[in-house]
């Protein structure tokens, strides 16, 4: 058996063996039918290998190399689009801005209420007027005075407001209070004192779910103030707690950050072509939206669109995206998470 093992090694080397080895081999093959059969098998394997090589010689090598290099280029340079605020933070921001917007509405409301609440000569008519106003506020966020005595009430209130506080008030005689004055720090403290003084109708309004809407966000964004910034800072401790991040923090609060360095792909994983789609010669393009974290990894990834859904392209693209690694985006020397969007194309060449 030991002899057979030795010969087996020689068989694999055949015909690149020395003449003495060849003699040994021939002698052993004549004596040992098992090894003779083994020799036949190995010769057949060599033939099969030669046949494979002939078949592979038919492959267009230039096209093969070009495809490899194209895949490499594609993985090296994915297409980036400008960053979009991540959804998780967008919700927090929306809530913060909605709260800020509610405060603004309070403020406006408080200006018109100032006279009534401060005036010691408030009457039952005033109480009735309050109720009417709260009702209106809940319905349409528009405080209108009752038609009767509206003129004189408004004039009186406006006068008192001007005396008590140096706040720009809406002086026009329009019914709507939608014109929001710029919010200042003094205003917000004033609002707080108003809240303490027991305007429960308005507090209920803060918690009203419909306050979270795009309109509110836009309104609040346009009126960025120290107050909103404070709330925003409180909602983003991960950003604002770090020393040296002040510059970015300021920029963040106005929701505009200029990314100096976009993420650079270090490792882009090529998705597996779904077997079934390949066999059926089906192609497709998946648009991927991925969040590049501050450590360069991708945790959150979504499919934006897929022109051939249900064939496994989305799953393959998502799986590959999650395994990709980037150099994270940065601004002012601080890494930032950004969203990038890139198409993943599955092209079946035999299509």
């Amino acid at each position, binding site marked *: 058996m030991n002899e057979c093992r030795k010969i087996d090694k020689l068989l*694999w080397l055949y015909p690149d063996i020395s003449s003495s080895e060849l003699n040994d081999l021939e002698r052993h093959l004549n004596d040992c039918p098992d090894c003779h059969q083994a020799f036949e098998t*190995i010769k057949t*394997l060599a033939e099969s290998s030669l046949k*494979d090589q002939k078949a*592979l010689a038919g*492959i267009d090598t230039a096209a093969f190399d070009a*495809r490899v*290099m194209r895949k490499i280029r594609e993985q090296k340079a994915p297409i980036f689009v400008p960053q979009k605020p991540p959804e998780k933070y967008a919700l927090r921001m929306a809530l913060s801005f909605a709260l800020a917007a509610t405060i603004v509405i309070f403020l406006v409301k408080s200006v018109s209420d100032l006279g009534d609440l401060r005036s010691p000569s408030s009457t039952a008519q005033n109480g009735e007027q309050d109720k009417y106003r709260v009702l209106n506020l809940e319905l349409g966020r528009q405080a209108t005075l009752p038609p009767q005595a509206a003129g004189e009430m408004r004039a009186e209130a406006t006068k008192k407001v001007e005396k008590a506080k140096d706040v720009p008030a809406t002086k026009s005689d329009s019914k709507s209070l939608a014109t929001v004055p710029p919010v200042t720090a003094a205003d917000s403290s004033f609002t707080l004192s108003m809240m303490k003084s027991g305007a429960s109708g308005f507090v209920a309004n803060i918690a009203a779910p419909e306050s979270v809407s795009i309109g509110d966000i836009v309104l609040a964004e346009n009126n960025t103030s120290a107050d909103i910034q404070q709330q925003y800072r409180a909602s983003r401790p991960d950003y604002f707690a770090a020393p040296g991040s002040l510059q970015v923090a300021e920029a963040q609060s106005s929701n505009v950050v200029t990314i100096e360095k976009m993420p650079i792909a270090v490792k882009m994983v090529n998705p597996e*072509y779904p077997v079934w789609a390949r066999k059926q010669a089906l192609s497709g393009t998946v648009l991927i939206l991925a969040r590049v974290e501050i450590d360069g990894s991708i945790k959150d990834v979504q499919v934006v669109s897929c022109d051939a859904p249900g064939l496994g392209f989305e799953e393959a693209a998502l799986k590959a995206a999650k395994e990709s690694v980037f150099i994270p985006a940065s601004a002012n020397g601080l890494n930032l998470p950004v969203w990038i969007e890139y198409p993943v194309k599955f092209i079946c060449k035999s299509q």
Partner: protein
Amino acid sequence: MLVGNDSGDIEHVRQALAGDDKAFEQLLLCHRQRILGICLRLLGDRIEAEEAAQESFVKIYFHLKDFDQARDFAAWAASVAMNECRDRLRRRVRHSKVFREVTEFDSIRESDTDAIESQERLIKVEKAIETLPSKLKEVLVLKAYGNYGYDEIAQILKVKIGTVMSRLFRARQKLTDIINKDDFI
């Protein structure tokens, strides 16, 4: 068959790492045929073998920095290709086998009996390889179709040379047993 020599390979690897894509293309040129050879026999499908080989080279490109330059590049490249083929075979088991293509064999042109017999033997051997356990099949394919040395196979499969030799011996024995069965195929 083009077989890259070691010193040239290492030089190309260094240049490729420095950002020279032409050097990588040289590596591609030197190792393409061997990698394709083992992929074709392991997967048994020319289109899939081509894809697997391409994918392997892309992986080689992006993981070139992980390559230990003291080692044999040919063996390292083959181990990448081997892993790619294993992945594909695993996926194939998971998915349906309905669309599995059978390797096309050259039609028999010669009419003499010897040629037919040798052709039959060839088909038998190729079918028998398919039936071997994966460990034996891998070592046999690397040796017979990739023409790798024992030490290279040991590096590729991360086993000892003795293991390679014994597996090869068993693989060859098993193969001979299978094709000598009259009712095979």
